[in-house]
C-alpha cells in the first residue's frame, strides 16, 4: 500500500513538510565538520528535485515562504535564503525538459554545476550586504557537503516520489 492510499489528502503537503524538516535540521547545533558548524542548506537538494519532477507539489510560493522561514531562524537579512531557494527552483524548473531525461549521475553533476554558480553568487551577495570580503572557506565547505549529500537526498526524494504516487 502506497502512502497515497493511506493518506490521500496530506500527501500534497509531504514534500513541504520534508523540506521544513531539512531546514530545521540544518539549524540545530550539529556539525558535519570537526572544527566548526557549517550551515548546509540540504533543503536546496529537495527543492532542486521537486522543481524538476513535481513542481506542482512543491511550488514557488511554498519555496519562497520556506526561504523566509529559514531567514527568520538563521537571523540573516530577510529574503537572502528566500532569494536563493527561489533561484534554484527557477533554474531547475527552467531546464526541466532537459533534466527530466537525465540519468541519476547526470542529475548529480547538474546539481553540482548549478550549486557552484549559486554558491559563488551567494558569497558575492553576502559580501555585498556585509560590505566586506567575508571568509570564503565556509562557502566552499558548504558547497562540498551539498554535492556529497546530493545523491543520498535525491535517492530519498525519488523514493518519496514513487511512494506518494503523484500524477504529472
Amino acid at each position, binding site marked *: 500500500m502506497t502512502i497515497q492510499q493511506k493518506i490521500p489528502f496530506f500527501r500534497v503537503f509531504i514534500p513541504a513538510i520534508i523540506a521544513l524538516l531539512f531546514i530545521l535540521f540544518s*539549524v540545530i547545533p550539529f556539525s558535519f565538520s570537526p572544527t566548526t558548524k557549517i550551515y548546509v542548506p540540504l533543503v536546496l537538494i529537495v527543492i532542486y528535485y521537486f522543481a524538476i519532477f513535481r513542481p506542482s507539489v512543491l511550488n514557488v510560493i511554498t519555496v519562497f515562504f520556506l526561504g523566509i522561514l529559514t531567514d527568520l531562524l*538563521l537571523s540573516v537579512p*530577510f529574503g*537572502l535564503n528566500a532569494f536563493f531557494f527561489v533561484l534554484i527552483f527557477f533554474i531547475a*524548473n527552467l531546464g526541466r525538459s532537459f533534466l527530466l531525461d537525465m540519468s541519476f549521475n547526470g542529475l548529480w553533476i547538474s546539481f553540482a554545476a548549478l550549486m557552484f554558480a549559486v554558491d559563488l553568487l551567494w558569497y558575492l551577495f553576502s559580501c555585498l550586504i556585509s560590505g566586506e570580503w567575508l571568509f570564503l572557506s565556509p562557502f566552499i565547505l558548504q558547497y562540498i557537503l551539498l554535492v556529497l549529500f546530493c545523491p543520498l537526498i535525491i535517492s530519498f526524494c525519488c523514493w518519496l516520489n514513487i511512494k506518494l504516487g503523484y500524477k504529472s
Partner: protein
Amino acid sequence: MENKFFRLKRIKAQVKQFAPVLFLIAALALTGIGVSNNPVLIRVRTAATDAFVPILSVLYTPVRWVKDIGNSVTEIFSIRSENERLKEENASLRLLQNKVYQLSSDNQKLSQLLNYKPDGEKHFVTARIVADNGGSFSKSVLVQAGTVDGISKGDLALTELGVLGRVIEVGSLASRVLLITDYTSRIPVKVGEDGVLAILSGDNSVLLKLIAVPEGAQINVGDLVMTSGHSGVYPAGLSLGTVVSMEGSNIYVQPFSERDKAEFVRLVDFGLDGLLPDSRCREE
C-alpha cells in the same frame, strides 16, 4: 465566451511562468528591507524563533543522544591517556590552589584595610543552545531562555572558558546570541602585560583579529587578551583569548571559548548600560 476562457487560461499560464521571477524580485526587495534591521522584522523574527524553539529542542534530542554515544565511545578509547593528563593537571592545580589561598587571604586583608565594597551578585541564567546558524554570512546561536527567564538585550553569554558572545535579540522563550567571531563583533580589549588598548574584531572565521592597535605597541605571541571595559557593553577583565600569530599588521587571537565545545551558556547581566536603546540606534 470561449475566447474569454482561453484568454484567462493564457494569462494564468503566463503568470505561472513568470511567478518565480516575481518571487525573486520580492526576495531581493525584502533583502533590501532586511538589511536595515527594521524593528517590525526583528519582532517577526523573535516571534518566529519563539514559535520554533520547542520544535528545535525536540529535534535536537536524538542528535544529542547520538552525540553522547559518540562522546562515550571516544572517551573509552582515550581514558588511559586522559587519566595521565588529569593527574599532571591535578598536580599543577594543587600548586595553584595554594597560591590562590594565599592571594585570597591577602586580598581579604587589603580589602578590609581599604574598606572596599565588592560588586553584588550578578544575575545569571544557564541555557541550552538549540540552534546554530553555522553562518557563512553571520555567526549567532539561539538559546532556550528569554524574557520569561529574565534575559535582556546586552546580557553576556559565557562558557566556563570565557566570553562566547552577547544577547542581541530577546523573545519570550528564546534569545539570539551574537558570537564574538561574527564579522560585526567589535570588543574593546587590553592586550598583554602592558595592557595595550585595541579592538578585537571577528571575521566569521575561528580566529579573531586585533584592529586599531596603536603604532609601536609591543604585542607578542602568547599575550593574553581581556576586555578593557571601555564600551560599557563588556565589563573589564573578562578573558577572551591569546595572541596566536602575527602576520605583518594582522594579529590573530585564538578565543578561549569555542562554539563547538559549548552546549550550554551562562547568560549574565552585568548591569552595564553601554548599549544604545534601539530607538536611538535607528535615529543615528
